[in-house]
């Protein structure tokens, strides 16, 4: 098969499609790989018109070594999915460069399809899927063009559409019934650092100058009953206990998934909801404050009232949970008390005097809390996403008495610090606050920009109590959420108000619609997991066993394929009507007697020849020929004529 694909235009298209397919990897891979790919693809493209510019075998060998070296140098290994995909991209580019024979052509097309698959490891959004689907369609069209005797683009396009239309139902069947597994076959070293997002495992206010707001969705919640009011929408995910030596860095608590939650007595409303969590790369799942139970397989609620899963959530996940916001906690263990009061060795005198001033008024912790909140409310504290950096040796003091500008983390950490100085056990909770209700999809959407931090203090008789000092400084933050779309460059935070203009309303409803589509996409396409498959099958009346799945898949897809096959193969006979079919069967009967019709022979000429050889059949042959001519060439045929013809041919037995 060493033949030059006849059409350089086909190769040019293939290179173009390859480039377009690799393009979205700019978001996932180091720019070095993308430049390498672009360079080689461009080189090959030029080579379609100037073949002598293409590299020889030695140069190709050198480039291959260079590609492998680049991968190891950039990603540190050849394993893990970022490294593998980088290597694949490099090799893909090299394959393009040596694209010569028909075999190379097919291999390149396969590489293109494989690259499409690798995109889904990083991102499964609808937009990307649509884009890649179009490219896959173009690839198949290109294959069809290559296999037509003469290039014919519109015809290829029509054929490809037909192929896709017939393949889609089979694909859906296979998608629904192919047995999924709940655990990976093997675990590759994952690259969680590469795709973390949302909450950070370290809380260190002041170390970053600017908090970037991302409008990416963190998770979506559907409530079975009523929605909690905005002030109750605290989504908990992290607990920070330990303060670093200078009081700035707070460390995340260990998972403690073996520790059971301390006794808590709940009261008030109960919320049932299901959460569609975007890829998260953490074990700490998001729940509404405070969770009672969840159906997430293998997950448990630990002593910090966090829902902990066994494995990191590396892909979009759906689970349901129950929470009740009103509760009374039990007693504090000694270990917790010492952790909740842990402080750096050296505490600034100014802070100690402030706290002792509060404590001198009343020794009641509740009073101290109020004093602290009053302090935040009355002193000129400003809520901003663009606070000055706190690089001094005593950041808490600097924040409380000098800069007084910051966002939730600043306030939460400063508050907890003050409480610990006052002898009240406290901790920081990380998570999300708020969420936007989508009336189209009837769900609450929580974005990364809604990330929040607040404090919890332990009070005798009440247990852990949620205190949000940010609410003291900027109550709108809690009630309305951040209007990140208008946030762009202004340093001061704007909060979302109900839109007044019609245009704004329209844009909002479009946004809701799009989010709703995306939600359904997430739920029904991406979230079609092992559990959902079982659920779906039990609804159909199967027990959901692996064997049954295989049976259901094989039987239904074979049936569908058989239908499609019949549909396609019938096209060959489509051009003939009943008369022609009957006449041909008569010809076949005569052929068994050694008189076969030439393709260019007329009915009467054939009849004459046949009668000469089989004179005893003269009458029948004459009658059939006459009826055939009448049916075929004359007008005003009666249905009886066809029936007569049919009978005559059936009775004709030479």
């Amino acid at each position, binding site marked *: 098969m060493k033949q030059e694909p006849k059409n350089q235009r086909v190769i040019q298209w293939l290179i173009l499609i390859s480039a377009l397919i690799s393009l979205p990897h700019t978001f996932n891979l180091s720019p070095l790989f993308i430049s390498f790919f672009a360079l080689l693809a461009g080189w090959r493209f030029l080579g379609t018109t100037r073949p002598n510019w293409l590299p020889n075998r030695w140069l190709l060998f050198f480039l291959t070594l260079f590609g492998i070296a680049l991968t190891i140098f950039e990603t540190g290994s050849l394993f893990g999915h970022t490294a593998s995909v980088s290597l694949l991209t490099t090799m893909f580019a090299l394959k393009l460069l040596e694209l010569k024979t028909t075999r190379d052509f097919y291999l390149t097309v396969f590489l293109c399809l494989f690259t499409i698959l690798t995109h889904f490891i990083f991102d499964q959004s609808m937009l990307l899927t649509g884009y890649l689907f179009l490219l*896959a369609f173009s690839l198949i069209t290109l294959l069809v063009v290559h296999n037509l*005797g003469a290039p014919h683009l519109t015809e290829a396009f029509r054929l490809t559409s037909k192929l896709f239309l017939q393949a*889609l139902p*089979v694909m859906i069947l296979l998608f629904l019934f192919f047995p999924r597994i709940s655990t*990976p076959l093997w675990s590759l070293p994952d690259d969680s650092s590469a795709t973390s997002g949302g909450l950070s495992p370290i809380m260190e206010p002041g170390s970053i100058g600017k908090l970037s707001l991302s409008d990416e969705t963190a998770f979506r919640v559907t409530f079975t009953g009523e929605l909690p009011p905005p002030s109750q929408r605290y989504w908990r995910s992290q607990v920070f206990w330990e303060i670093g030596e200078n009081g700035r860095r707070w460390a995340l608590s260990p998972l403690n998934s073996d520790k059971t939650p301390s006794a808590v007595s709940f009261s008030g409303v109960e919320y049932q909801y299901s959460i569609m969590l975007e890829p998260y790369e953490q074990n700490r799942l998001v729940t509404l404050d405070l969770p009672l139970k969840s159906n997430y397989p293998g997950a448990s609620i630990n002593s910090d009232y966090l829902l902990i899963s066994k494995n990191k959530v590396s892909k979009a996940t759906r689970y349901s949970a129950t929470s009740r916001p009103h509760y009374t906690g039990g007693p504090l263990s000694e270990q917790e008390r010492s952790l909740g009061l842990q402080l750096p060795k050296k505490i600034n005198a100014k802070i100690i005097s402030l706290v002792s001033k509060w404590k001198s008024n009343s020794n009641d912790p509740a009073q101290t809390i109020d004093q602290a909140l009053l302090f935040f409310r009355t002193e000129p504290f400003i809520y901003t996403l663009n606070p000055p950096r706190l690089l001094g040796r005593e950041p808490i003091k600097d924040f409380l008495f000098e800069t007084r500008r910051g966002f939730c983390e600043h306030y939460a950490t400063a508050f907890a610090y003050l409480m610990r100085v006052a002898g009240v056990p406290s901790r920081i909770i990380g998570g999300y606050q708020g969420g936007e209700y989508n009336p189209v999809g009837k769900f609450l959407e929580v974005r990364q920009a809604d990330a929040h931090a607040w404090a919890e203090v332990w009070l005798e008789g009440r247990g852990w109590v949620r205190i949000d000092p940010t609410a003291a400084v900027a109550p709108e933050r809690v009630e309305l959420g951040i209007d990140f779309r208008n946030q762009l460059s202004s340093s001061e935070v704007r909060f979302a108000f109900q839109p007044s203009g019609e245009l704004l309303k329209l844009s909002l409803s479009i946004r809701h619609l799009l989010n709703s589509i995306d939600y359904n996409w997430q739920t029904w396409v991406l979230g079609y997991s092992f559990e959902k498959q079982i659920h779906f099958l039990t609804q159909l009346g199967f027990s959901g066993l692996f064997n049954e799945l295989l049976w259901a898949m094989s039987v239904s897809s074979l049936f569908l394929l058989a239908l499609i096959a019949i549909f396609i193969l019938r096209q*060959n006979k489509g051009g003939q009507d009943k008369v022609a079919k009957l006449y041909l069967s008569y010809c076949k009967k005569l052929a068994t007697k050694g008189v076969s019709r030439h393709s260019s022979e007329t009915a009467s000429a054939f009849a004459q020849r046949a009668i000469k050889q089989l004179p005893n059949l003269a009458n029948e042959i004459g009658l059939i020929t006459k009826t055939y001519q009448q049916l075929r060439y004359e007008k005003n045929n009666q249905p009886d004529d066809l029936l007569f013809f049919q009978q005559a041919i059936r009775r004709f037995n030479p």
Partner: protein
Amino acid sequence: MLIISLNYNLSLGFALTFLLASLSIISIFYCFQNLAGLNIQVKPINPVFAGSAVNINVQLINSSQIRWGIALSKGRSKKELIKKNIAAHETSILPISIDGVGRGSHTVGTLTFSTCFPLGLFRGWSPINCAQEFLVYPKPSDTLISFQYGSINHLQGNSSSKAGDEELSCLAGYKEGDPIKLIDWKSLAKERGVFVRQFEESSAVALLLDWEKVPGPTTEEKLSQLCRQIIEAKQNGFRYGLKLPDSVTPIASGAKHYESVLKQLALFQS
């Protein structure tokens, strides 16, 4: 692809994998349908001289919808000699030529029709054994050994070849160089123009090409020389006969005669 989709539990990966799987299965049906039901006939093949390519015209009659990229190869090889689309309800000819066929009578043998339509993932093929025969004449010798005029034999050429028994066949327009004695003076006198009389047997030369008289060490060389002589004789308008060890063809001329003597050479001792 399936394993990657399973391992990372990629819904879209499954979708893509299954889409491609369905496409390739469906493409098998298309591949089959593209080749099924074609009516194939091999046209009569013109005889050739050894050394030149044999041209075979294969006729495909398509009685249904268009067939894409039908390829034809000789024997059971995968080397496609020609690839063509055949329009709906169309009769199409696929011309192929075969080199290096020696003298004698041959059959076409196996022809393989194949198609990779629509995706090139599967190749459908159908070998057809074709009993159609064709003749390959000996290769004409490069050097012409002058005719053995001595072999002119009027007796063998029997009575029909009396020289001078000229039969007026038709009149043709005068071309420069035509002999004056052939001008049709009657029509010139009638002012119809200058015409030349054409005679069926304008040449009186008759030859008997004799196997015995042709030099050459091997049978093939002798045949080759005879072949060349027949061609020369025909081109010069001579009448000629052929004497082979086991048969004698009387002196005659014309296309049929030419073909029959060459056929004898082709089939000689084979």
